[in-house]
């Protein structure tokens, strides 16, 4: 199997992420050139030009939030695929996004939009607690048991979501749909997401080598000195936290968490020390690009970014898959 050296892939993805940021900061209904953007980024508020407010207060935080959400989802997906030993797993496979959506939708239904974020986060945690509580058989979590429990719990959340959607007043349904598809127009702060991302990636890298071995089976990993229970628990907690933060910021953006880890793995392999940072960069870049397109393609109308991640990601992934198969 011939592979491009790992560091070249990582460097290329870092460049892609930078390009995505450049695109996000320059594109929009107000025409701001590259040099004006650079000036806005470097200048202080008091000697700001025209573009300052647009770049610093609208585009930059939103690009940062998009990058963080995309990267968190891709990281969570990478971890879930290892933990469940299944390349088809994604961050939502254990029903976490369903719980978050129910929390957010109930908040929207009650008309208290200030509670959407805490509601989503609480819903995500409740769902995680339910799945792990139910799937616990004699002290350990077997992947199949978790997966089955998660899928069934997710179906339950799905039914609840449908119930809320069908009974909600029509004026609120559109907002709810945007939330469900995934939308970043509400993101006004980029810092918290990036901070969460840095934390999750740092801790994940600590476990990266153990995670690579875990993907070859619990017994093999344990026989090589991996503390299987502790590592699995830590990775599950990390993935749940990353997903909860992402979903809380942007709703259930689909596709990124499933396909980015998979696509990046095709290029860089399954060594988690490389796959985790590479997936984070790729996921962040993809969502930043998709979100910028979502807010500019049909401006002033805004598309939910979740639709675009799929529209960009599906052909990209199919192309990669075909290329590898040959």
């Amino acid at each position, binding site marked *: 199997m011939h592979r491009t050296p790992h560091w070249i892939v990582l460097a290329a993805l870092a460049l892609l992420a930078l390009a995505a940021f450049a695109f996000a900061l320059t594109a929009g209904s107000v025409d701001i050139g590259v040099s004006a953007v650079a000036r806005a980024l470097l200048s202080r508020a008091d000697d700001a030009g025209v573009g300052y407010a647009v770049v610093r207060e609208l585009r930059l935080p939103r690009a940062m939030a998009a990058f963080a959400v995309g990267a968190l989802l891709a990281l969570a997906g990478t971890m879930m695929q290892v933990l469940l030993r299944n390349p088809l797993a994604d961050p939502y496979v254990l029903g976490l996004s369903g719980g978050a959506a129910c929390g957010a939708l109930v908040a929207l239904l009650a008309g208290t939009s200030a509670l959407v974020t805490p509601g989503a986060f609480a819903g995500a945690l409740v769902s995680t607690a339910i799945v792990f509580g139910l799937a616990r058989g004699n002290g350990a979590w077997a992947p199949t048991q978790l997966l089955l429990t998660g899928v069934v719990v997710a179906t339950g959340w799905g039914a609840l979501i449908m119930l809320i959607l069908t009974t909600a007043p029509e004026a609120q349904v559109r907002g709810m749909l945007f939330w469900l598809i995934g939308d970043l127009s509400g993101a006004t702060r980029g810092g918290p997401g990036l901070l969460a991302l840095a934390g999750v990636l740092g801790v994940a890298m600590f476990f990266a080598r153990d995670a690579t071995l875990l993907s070859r089976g619990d017994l093999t990993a344990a*026989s*090589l000195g991996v503390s299987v229970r502790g590592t699995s628990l830590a990775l599950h907690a990390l993935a749940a936290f990353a997903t909860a933060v992402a979903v809380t910021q942007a709703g259930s953006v689909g596709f990124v968490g499933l396909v980015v880890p998979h696509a990046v*793995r095709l290029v860089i392999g399954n060594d988690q020390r490389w796959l985790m940072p590479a997936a984070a960069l790729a996921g962040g870049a993809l969502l930043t690009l998709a979100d910028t397109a979502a807010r500019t393609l049909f401006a002033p109308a805004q598309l939910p970014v979740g639709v675009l991640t799929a529209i960009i990601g599906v052909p990209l992934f199919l192309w990669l898959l075909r290329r590898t198969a040959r």
Partner: protein
Amino acid sequence: MTSAPPILSCRDLALAVPGRTLCSDVAFDVRAGECWIVAGRNGAGKTTLLQTLAGLRRPAAGAVLLAGRPIAECAPRWRAQRLGFLAQDTFDAFPATALEIALGGRHPHVPRWRPESATDVSLAHAALAAVGMNDAALRDVQTLSGGERRRVALAMLLAQDPDVMLLDEPTSHLDIAHEVRSLELLARLAHDRGRAVVMALHDLTLAARFATHVILLGSDRVESGPAGALLTAEKLSTLFGQTLVAVAHSRGTVFVPD
């Protein structure tokens, strides 16, 4: 040799799976240079015994000692530097090159934040070469056949290079040539390099050829000791509930079903 302290031993060991006791009062000592073979019917508990000896499963009673220490109290990393285990099944759900997999065997020897050294890489290559897979070092494991994957898994254990190697049917999926070659390799590691080998094996003729010691895992009793006294047609016929005839051959004893 027999005066050397045992590297792996068990005392009053009892094994159970949910709802069933497999065996009790198992006790034996494994010393450097010995090649132990575990024989028994399907479901007799060979896998359970090996996993328990590897410290990956709690015994129902008794204790396993690795280099004199209760294995349950050993730090996982310390244990993995001294004892390796080849599981019956390995998962190849994700792409990885044969070399990456063999390098995984170096895990207990490489500090957490350090990349594998050039020495680790050459040990992994040597391990792949030992199982005849070094030409496929950069091949994706998912493109390999079942037998080739088995040899790569064995290479991972060889790269780990522990004092004690526990192997659960190491020759499954292997053709007869690679079966013999792998067993010769393990026997050499025991005899020439002072490693201890304990493995479950179904081929009694090959067991008779390579074992220095044997554990016969019966439903009501467990016998362990030097191979010569235990690998007899009479004992094996009772163990398997199938009459076997021992045929002497210049290269060893052949067991033929009656």
